[in-house]
């Protein structure tokens, strides 16, 4: 609630502590939120589902979740509304923050070869398997036979090396880490799925004051813009809220942080999700992203 004395509003944001959310940390450090009279607390959450339930239950005024999670929540009738872009794919093959990796001596050479293989994703029926299927489809393969298994990103490289799975989908810092240890990328699934794919977004629920939302959006936009323009500062801020080793931080591919949500790409994901059975029916993205 707004504090009548100072006009400063206390805000609690549920945000997962990964590379993708650097802007909000950077923005907070730069005082962009204070400028908007927002006293921001960033609470680390474990994933999209936790962020959504935290927001719905009123614990968070704003939170960060990936596109598919938000689409699913919307379809289940939860009152979620996007307030700002979260993170986007660079769209460049070989230079994105998300990739499908295989062992160096694997017979899998291209995305097409992934058909019929066992691939790990961090969560089933989410953005990972949808985009990996898209990669395979784009390369001319048949994604229906792929066996996806759930593995948290941190455990995936070990499973790959141990031969437990044929390929893994991971995001930074695990992409750089695995590649430096010999793993070979065969697909850049975010880049494949849609041009300039919006991977995740900041959102709120109906109960948040629209005026506050406006201020948060403004601060967030400024943060995104700043982060996108200052990769070195991003790498610095990563050291404050993650435990990624400094030498890794120096090497990782940073994502893009455009200010605007790429609605088209969200719609693409929504349509792919329906085709893959992740979503039950077609969904109109404008209801989610105003």
């Amino acid at each position, binding site marked *: 609630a707004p504090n009548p004395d100072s006009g400063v509003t206390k805000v609690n944001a*549920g945000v*997962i*502590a*990964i590379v993708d959310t650097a802007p909000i940390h950077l923005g907070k450090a730069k005082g962009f939120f204070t400028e908007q009279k927002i006293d921001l607390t960033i*609470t*680390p*959450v*474990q994933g999209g589902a*936790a962020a959504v*339930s*935290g927001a*719905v*239950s*009123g*614990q*968070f005024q704003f939170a960060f979740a990936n596109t598919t999670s938000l689409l699913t929540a919307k379809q289940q009738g939860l009152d979620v509304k996007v307030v700002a872009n979260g993170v986007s794919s660079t769209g460049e093959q070989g230079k994105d923050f998300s990739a499908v990796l295989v062992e160096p001596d694997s017979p899998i050479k291209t995305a097409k070869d992934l058909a019929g293989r066992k691939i790990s994703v961090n969560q089933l029926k989410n953005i990972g398997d949808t985009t990996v299927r898209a990669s395979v489809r784009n390369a001319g393969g048949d994604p229906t036979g792929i066996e996806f298994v759930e593995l*948290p*990103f*941190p455990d995936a*490289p*070990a499973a790959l*090396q141990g031969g437990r799975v044929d390929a893994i989908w991971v995001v930074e*810092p*695990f992409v750089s*880490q695995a590649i430096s*240890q010999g793993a070979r990328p065969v697909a850049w699934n975010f880049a494949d799925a849609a041009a300039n794919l919006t991977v995740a977004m900041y959102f709120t629920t109906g109960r948040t004051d629209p005026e506050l939302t406006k201020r948060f959006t403004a601060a967030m936009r400024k943060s995104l813009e700043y982060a996108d323009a200052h990769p070195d500062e991003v790498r610095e801020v990563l050291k404050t*809220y*993650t*435990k*990624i*080793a400094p030498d*890794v931080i120096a090497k990782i591919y940073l994502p893009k942080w455009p200010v605007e949500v790429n609605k088209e790409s969200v719609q693409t994901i929504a349509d792919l999700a329906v085709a893959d059975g992740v979503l039950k029916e077609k969904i109109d993205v404008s209801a989610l992203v105003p």
Partner: protein
Amino acid sequence: MIRTRLGYGLAGLGALLVLMEAVPRLGLVDERFLPPASRILSALAGQLATDELWIALGETMRGWAVGLALAFCAAVVTGVLIGIVPGLRALTSSTIEFLRPIPSVALVPLATLLFGPSLGSTLLLVVYASFWQVLIQVLYGVAAVDSVASDTARSYGLSAWSRVRHLVWPTALPYVMTGLRLAAAVAFILAVTAELVIGSPGLGAEIQVAQSSGAVPAVYALIVVAGLVGIGVNAAVRLLERRVLAWHPAVRAEVAA
């Protein structure tokens, strides 16, 4: 006596350390995924020097202690009541057996809904999980009352409260102690897990951040912290046991030797 026990205990831990050092060094598993003990310990030393770890540990221990105390008291009272009031056991048994296997993790949505990422959520999960551990032990302990002893109490007209205090409770105590040891660990595990899953601040949150940053030695260092806490808690309960169960054959034998 205590000193030789300590000696044996340290020997056991030493053996574990050697094993943890050898397994990665011999290439049985990849060092990158399971670093040798020396690396873990040096990471631990680094962590111990930071305030963060101690603050996180403090948070976790607070949730642990409060949750454990709540669960323990509630379970003991409930267990004794169910155990001695005729008919109550039959009335509650199906419900208990139904509720017991519900994983605390499944209550995460409920917890976040009610309390969000705060101490409240942690407490809900901790209390829920450790309550059953103590309760079952108390139920079995109460059932273990010797029939002759119980007849004695009845024939001398001991009131219900005196029977609980002087007969039921001492008989159940060894079971309760095991329950306390079980619950202490479960409470700690749930405190960490709650932080891990919900993200309330504490050791679990630290582990979660370390994991998603791919900082393997740091993850293991934090796990070691958890293990050390476990050893400490157990030692404390054992000490307590020596005091309150001095009359018990098992403890008697230990003290005498």
